[in-house]
């Protein structure tokens, strides 16, 4: 047993059984998976990603590079979890990973959420400095949020024994942490890690609400992504111990010194029986002394410094520990776990003398010094400078409205960190206008730390660098860095990309500085010149599911259906997606395929009558005294001449004169219009109107309102449309009293309705608009009224074929943002003589938009009337020319026509309006299709059918 009878914060009365690599183990409430495995004597947790080397627990926190596990099974399985950050829960199932985890093939059944929060002061990190800062800001009355990655506040103090000399300060801190809960405007979020800092005080944080792998909390929201908007930020993200690179430094049993200390004091686990401590500084001594006290034999402390004189050093010597000064561990030996180390005198910064001394041990605790963790500051561009002492890097100038406090600011002593935290919290609150009378800071009795002697890399005497791991997670060795430098790479960013050192899921926390140091040494350059790899969000892996939150499936892209949708479903409609809308594509009879159904539906409309659900058309209501002027400016044609009770087709251009959207505009009153838009363009047209009204023409008093879903629209089209509608309404429908492009209000099927005589098929047609909820009743009434005439419901495909026969364009099908109204042969709708300006007018006067050889809309009739041109096919004048052929246009729409008895197409063709009668070709894989250029109007060019 490695578990001690007394030490630690675990609850020994609550044993938890769990499964690791198929075997059963037991731990205690308060354990992590790592501490429980160590207590059970499990040295090897995983295999390394490329070399397949055995790896054990290396750290006690987020910096863990080695002990990665897959948690749970099935759709909720969590890949790539650090055993050091998995809270032990009963029944957890984990297995060690060989490098990478795997996602389940099944959809994640967990729920994820998002949360927005706003605060005056955001404190990131709940160690001593951060807790003090949150307390200071919170007591001043500032709205304060404190984020802590772990389950409880306290930071590194959780791994320090209660008997340590700073007891008074810790009691003070415990008191302040309790007090935090009483501040009305302060909230503390534990198990919540800041993943990124962004401009303007935006911080993202990931909260783990369900303990991963915990079957008992399966019902909870698994994770929650916070977007926090903070006015002032205090970073108190601490420091991490830096490992030292030497041969065999990846063996299980080699561990960061503070981790060995934390396992002892926080979890009551002794990680070995005979330890060697390899340090460059004082901090490892405290842990070594605690190990001795707990019954571990500390064979020796290997200190890089020639003459350390600190109080802790003296205490270690007094306790009989062999302190070897000016020395280093050059090689760690062992199979699946460390068994011995070779120790020698340091010769220079990173070399050892050839005379090494073997020392047996089963635990090697390493401390290369402490690296401040201020990656978040670097997310918004803060630079780092090489530190004058202690090695590594620190932030040069903190970002705006951001303060650094505690170890992340190189303030390592507890007393100074607390003072700095209080000061940072007070200043942040004061910047927002909050203050409180000062309260005395605690007094701390702590030994004065002596300067470290940083050593990053100890080369073995035989010069073999292939076991000197710089990045344990990525299996990068000093030999790899040497190859990178040998290949001519000098930038740390290039070395990173060449070797992948520092790119792992651990964000290279234990690797970053050592990669720079080894590179610097191999280049013979100072560390300050080499610099540190960039830090980018996120600081920890964030599951895509957490980024998506609830925006999955239908909630990611909502499905919009019309009030008549149910009827379409019941009548077997096949649907197509138009933007977010589901629209009936066609209504097959029996096992009828698309083409057959379209021929039948189109024939019915031309011969008798059809009905279509047109509710998805965008509808915008425009009101106000200046509405006519506004419409004149937005559309290419004039609206001041439109009488109340009439409607008019309108075209909109963008500033470059290209077609943007089209639709019918109804004048329902002097100062009230309803403009319809394309189904897909409704939101963009609304935005466009608002932008012009608010930014360029604020003097126009016009109110625009989206009413798309307030109206349901049914169109009746075909020679029998008037008969059908007459059965359902008393509105006079004859051509005299209800002419083409008129609108009439009245009751249809007893429902208040607005009826328009517009046609998108060339046939006599009525569009009946009623308020949305009555849509289905209207549809069913017209369906009944149409039975004597054999009315047929038709879908979007038939609608498209019918309008194409008439040469009516669809914006987005015939146009692609490069097509002017003139290109479409619609010069008639551009009132260039209109005195006032309209959007796009100037561009339509440019030479280029008036070139005669622009691509223009034409009709195409394949010479073989059964050959159908594929939409999108490129057109050439000579199909036998060598490849690459000169392309002169493309097919935009192509159908088989019932009424023409042949196929036909619309196309955009260079100088198309001058090519009537010419033959063009669509070269395809299996031969070219020849087609004659025609007018785009294939059917009823005299518009004789629209009046019925």
């Amino acid at each position, binding site marked *: 047993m490695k578990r001690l009878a007394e030490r630690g914060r675990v609850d020994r009365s609550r044993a938890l059984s769990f499964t690791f690599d198929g075997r059963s183990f037991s731990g205690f409430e308060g354990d992590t998976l790592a501490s429980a495995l160590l207590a059970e004597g499990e040295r090897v947790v995983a295999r390394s990603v490329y070399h397949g080397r055995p790896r054990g627990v290396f750290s006690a926190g987020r910096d863990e590079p080695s002990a990665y596990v897959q948690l749970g099974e099935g759709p909720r399985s969590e890949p790539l979890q650090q055993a050091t950050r998995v809270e032990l829960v009963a029944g957890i199932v984990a297995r060690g990973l060989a490098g990478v985890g795997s996602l389940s093939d099944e959809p994640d059944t967990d729920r994820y959420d998002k949360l927005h929060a706003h605060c005056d002061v955001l404190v990131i990190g709940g160690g001593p400095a951060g807790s003090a800062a949150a307390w200071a800001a919170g007591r001043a009355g500032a709205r304060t949020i404190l984020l802590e990655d772990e389950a409880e506040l306290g930071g590194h103090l959780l791994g320090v024994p209660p008997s340590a000399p700073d007891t008074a300060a810790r009691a003070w801190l415990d008191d302040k942490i309790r007090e935090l809960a009483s501040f009305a405007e302060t909230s503390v979020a534990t198990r919540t890690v800041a993943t990124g800092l962004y*401009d*303007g005080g935006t911080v993202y944080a990931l909260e783990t609400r369900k303990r991963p792998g915990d079957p008992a909390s399966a019902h909870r929201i698994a994770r929650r992504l916070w977007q926090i908007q903070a006015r002032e930020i205090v970073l108190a993200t601490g420091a991490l111990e830096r490992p030292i690179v030497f041969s065999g430094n990846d063996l299980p049993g080699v561990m960061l010194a503070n981790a060995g200390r934390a396992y002892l004091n926080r979890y009551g686990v002794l990680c070995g029986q005979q330890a060697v401590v390899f340090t460059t500084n004082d901090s490892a001594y405290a842990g070594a002394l605690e190990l001795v006290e707990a019954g571990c034999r500390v064979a020796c402390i290997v200190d890089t410094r020639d003459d350390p004189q600190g109080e802790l050093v003296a205490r270690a010597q007094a306790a009989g520990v062999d302190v070897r000064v000016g020395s280093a561990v050059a090689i760690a030996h062992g199979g699946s776990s460390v068994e011995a180390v070779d120790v020698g005198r340091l010769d220079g910064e990173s070399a050892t003398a050839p005379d090494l001394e073997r020392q047996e041990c089963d635990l090697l605790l390493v401390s290369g010094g402490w690296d401040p963790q201020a990656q978040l500051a670097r997310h918004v561009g803060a630079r780092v400078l090489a530190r004058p002492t202690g090695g590594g890097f620190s932030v040069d100038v903190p970002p705006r409205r951001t303060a650094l406090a505690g170890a992340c600011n190189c303030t390592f002593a507890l007393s100074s960190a607390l003072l700095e935290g209080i000061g940072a919290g007070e200043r942040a609150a004061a910047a927002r206008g909050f203050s409180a009378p000062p309260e005395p800071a605690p007094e701390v009795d702590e030994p004065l730390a002596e300067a470290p002697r940083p050593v990053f890399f100890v080369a073995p005497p035989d010069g073999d660098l292939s076991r000197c791991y710089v990045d344990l997670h990525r299996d990068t060795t000093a030999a790899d860095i040497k190859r990178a430098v040998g290949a001519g790479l000098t930038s740390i960013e290039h070395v990173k990309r060449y070797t992948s050192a520092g790119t792992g899921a651990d964000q290279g926390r234990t690797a970053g500085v050592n990669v720079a140091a080894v590179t610097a040494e191999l280049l013979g350059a100072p560390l300050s010149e080499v610099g540190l790899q960039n830090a980018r969000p996120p600081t920890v892996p964030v599951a895509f599911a957490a980024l998506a939150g609830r925006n999955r499936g239908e909630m990611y892209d909502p499905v919009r259906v019309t009030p008549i949708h149910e009827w379409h479903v019941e009548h077997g409609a096949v649907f197509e997606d138009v933007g977010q809308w589901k629209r009936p594509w066609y209504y097959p009879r029996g096992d009828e395929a698309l083409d057959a159904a379209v021929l039948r539906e189109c024939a019915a409309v031309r011969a008798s009558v059809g009905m279509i659900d047109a509710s998805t058309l965008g509808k915008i209501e425009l009101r106000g005294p200046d509405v006519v002027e506004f419409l004149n400016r937005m559309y290419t044609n004039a609206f001041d001449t439109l009488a109340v009770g009439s409607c008019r087709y309108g075209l909109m251009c963008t500033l470059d004169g290209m077609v943007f959207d089209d639709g019918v505009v109804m004048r329902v009153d002097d100062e009230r219009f309803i403009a319809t838009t394309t189904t897909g363009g409704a939101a963009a047209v609304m935005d466009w109107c*608002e*932008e012009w009204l*608010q930014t360029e023409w604020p003097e126009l008093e016009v109110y625009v309102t989206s009413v798309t879903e307030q109206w349901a629209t049914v169109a009746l089209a075909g020679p029998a449309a008037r008969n059908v509608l007459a059965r359902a309404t008393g509105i006079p429908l004859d051509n005299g009293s209800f002419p083409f492009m008129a609108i009439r209000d009245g009751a249809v099927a007893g429902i208040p309705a607005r009826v328009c005589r517009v046609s998108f098929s060339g046939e006599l047609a009525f569009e009946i608009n009623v308020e949305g909820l009555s849509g289905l009743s209207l549809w069913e009434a017209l369906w009944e009224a149409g039975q004597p005439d054999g009315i047929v419901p038709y879908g979007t495909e038939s609608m498209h074929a019918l309008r194409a026969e008439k040469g009516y364009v669809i914006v987005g099908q015939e146009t692609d943002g490069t097509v002017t109204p003139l290109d479409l042969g619609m010069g008639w709708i551009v009132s260039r003589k209109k005195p006032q300006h309209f959007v796009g007018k100037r561009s339509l006067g440019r030479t280029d938009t008036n070139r005669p050889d622009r691509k223009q809309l034409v009709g195409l009739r394949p010479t073989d009337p059964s050959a159908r041109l594929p939409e999108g096919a490129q057109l050439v004048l000579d199909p036998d020319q060598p490849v690459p052929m000169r392309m002169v246009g493309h097919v935009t729409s192509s159908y088989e026509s019932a009424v023409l008895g042949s196929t036909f197409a619309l196309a955009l063709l260079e100088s198309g309006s001058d090519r009537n009668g010419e033959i063009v070709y669509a070269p395809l894989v299996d031969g070219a299709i020849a087609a004659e250029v025609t007018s785009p109007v294939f059917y009823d060019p005299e518009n004789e059918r629209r009046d019925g």
Partner: protein
Amino acid sequence: MGEFRERWVHVHGCRRWFNVVRDTSTHEIAGSYPMGTAGPELPS
């Protein structure tokens, strides 16, 4: 580089267009003012 006048729109909220003075190197927003008003003087 430096402070720059920009047009912004609050797409997911009130849909209002407004002017913003933003520092293009720090992304710091110095302030906002309604359309049609002159706004603050910028350092030349």
